[in-house]
């Protein structure tokens, strides 16, 4: 197990270096630099001279060819320094720290909701399998699964923010807090954020809900045919206890590996959803960083996402060995 872990970690490190190298090269070759893009926005009278531009390029290390800059970036990274954002004049780590809260708020509540709803729904579909009501529920879930989140987000916005405007069901159009957030009481603030969360969390949840409940159902259907379930029924165990205690416990193995694979999505946020709801999270930060050509921020976020993906895969494999004694990595 230990040597397996070391091998996986070393391989992961190599993959990480390759990924960041590829992305660094791509990002540095995008047309425009953070300095010229920032200049294009300010009025022509405040345009800085060629010499100043050269000096600034030097200060940010933009004058060197990108492979050299990449080595420097790696060196800084080894000292746990992700650099400073060029367009925001702040350390990248602080930027990420600011944005991680809102993203976690959405992803954690939606994952919690999805699991909370998916497991009972999976039970329900197993018990009523093949009946008309189960077919109807499954069909709706399947269609939801095919519904792109940004389309759903826009549909919901049209309904709740525009059509129902002025009614009690109206929900805010964008952002995480209202303009008068600072003046609200503690309970008022909580209510305000909650109201802003409803639509984004719905969009985050419905697709994974469809996926998880199908996942639970397909695993349960395999287990429910096993002999030990028949034995349990034969000895007079109640139907609820059979489903929850005997069947579901045996479907936990694939479920656990799924948790490992959701790790990256937990922190990376969704670029499109955060963009639609103007949610100040990681996905939006990434989108802004790309349009501003803010190299250090893009690299910091890429590094974080890739580390999470690799860690998630490793975690899934390890958890697999933990919950299933038949799996060993020696």
């Amino acid at each position: 197990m230990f040597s397996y872990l070391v091998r996986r970690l070393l391989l992961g490190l190599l993959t990480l270096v390759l990924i960041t190298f590829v992305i660094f090269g791509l990002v540095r070759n995008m047309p425009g630099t953070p300095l010229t893009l920032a200049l294009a926005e300010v009025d022509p009278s405040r345009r800085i001279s060629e010499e100043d531009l050269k000096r600034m390029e030097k200060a940010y290390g933009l004058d060197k060819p990108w492979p050299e800059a990449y080595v420097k970036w790696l060196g800084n990274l080894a000292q746990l320094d992700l650099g400073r954002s060029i367009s925001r004049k702040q350390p990248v780590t602080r930027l990420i720290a600011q944005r991680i809260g809102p993203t976690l708020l959405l992803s954690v509540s939606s994952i919690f909701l999805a699991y909370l709803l998916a497991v009972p729904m999976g039970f329900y579909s197993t018990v009523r399998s093949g009946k008309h009501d189960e077919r109807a529920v499954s069909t709706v879930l399947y269609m939801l699964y095919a519904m792109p989140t940004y389309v759903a987000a826009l549909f919901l916005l049209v309904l709740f923010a525009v059509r129902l405007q002025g009614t009690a069901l109206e929900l805010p159009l964008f952002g995480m807090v209202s303009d008068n957030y600072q003046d609200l009481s503690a309970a008022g603030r909580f209510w305000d954020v909650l109201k802003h969360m409803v639509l984004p969390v719905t969009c985050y949840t419905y697709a994974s809900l469809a996926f998880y409940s199908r996942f639970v159902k397909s695993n349960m259907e395999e287990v429910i045919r096993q002999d030990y379930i028949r034995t349990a029924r034969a000895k007079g165990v109640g139907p609820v206890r059979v489903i929850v205690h005997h069947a579901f416990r045996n479907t936990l193995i694939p479920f656990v590996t799924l948790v490992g694979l959701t790790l990256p999505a937990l922190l990376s946020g969704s670029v499109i959803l955060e963009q639609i709801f103007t949610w100040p999270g990681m996905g939006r930060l990434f989108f802004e960083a790309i349009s501003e050509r803010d190299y250090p921020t893009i690299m910091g976020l890429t590094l974080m996402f890739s580390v999470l993906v690799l860690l998630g895969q490793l975690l899934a494999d390890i958890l697999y060995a933990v919950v299933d004694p038949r799996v060993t990595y020696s």
Partner: protein
Amino acid sequence: MTESQQPDSPSPDRELALASRSFWAEAWRRFGRRKLAMGALVFVGLLALVAIFSPAIAGTKPIVCKYKGRLYFPAMAYFNPRWENEVFYRDKFRKRYPENLKEKDPDSWAIWPLVYQDPFRRVHAGEWEGQPGNPTGADGRPSRYNWLGTNQEGVDVFAQLVHGTRIALLVGFVSTGIAAAIGIALGALAGYLGGWVDMLLSRLIELVMCIPALVFILALIAILENPTIWHLMAVLGITGWTGIARLTRGEFIKLSKTEFVVAAQALGAGRFRIMFRHMLPNALAPVLVPISFGIASAILIESALSFLGFGAPPPNPSWGTLLNAGRSNLQMWWLIVFPGTAIFLTVLTYNLIGEGLQEATDPRLREAGK
């Protein structure tokens, strides 16, 4: 395909009973039993018809017209602007066919598209008999003349949706085609050759899989300074092949130990002949499943990119571009509901086909006799 190339029959007795049926005929029969999957296939066929005949369904250029003694097909310009005969430039038609045809050649005749609306520009009053000019802004709700409404600038949504079908299908097929070509070639090489080739290619697959897809796509698109829809398809193809490669690799590893491959090797067939003539037809069925899902995700990503403003430049009647226009005008619900439903239905369709294929070709599920 001959029977001799079907060594891995799932259950021998069943195969005996159906000896006259080939694997693909059997798979097709199973696929046909799933009503939803068949319905999805019919829907894709309909979409393809809409895409092919889009200039005949909605347009402002005649499908066929006789002008000064010669036949022309001006509607073909919607496929490629260069296919519009230059006689219409010389005679200064300025994209207004109905009045100019009558005025400049009284003997002319023309067959018009079903709906006189253009996906790229607003139709003005008096252009077409009995049809008022398109309304703009919030007045453009669905009406008799604009079935699905008009956008902020007064361009008909129905026409854009019809012509957008072409882009959606093209993106789906071309980018998945590129992804399939890369994925199958690399997966086959890795699976059959093994050794250091497999080692290298597997690392490459892992690497591309771990790069966050959106970072990769956005960065690649940003590098191309003026991306067209074709560049976009290439980028989607280059980033979307890993799943197919993995599956192909697995299938080839499995197949490389079977008798018919060993027989081919013993007969002295070359590596590439074995890989692509003997093994590929047998590995193709499972690979079709991720290809079908790949089409769905390519359409999804293209409209998402157009929606974010990173898609092909205008004029580009992509469904995502329409949605993007709706996002800044939420009270114009028709800009969101119709293209959104189109994207949703297309993605759903390809998912259903993928699932149908999976159940029709997966031997494990076939044994269950369902």
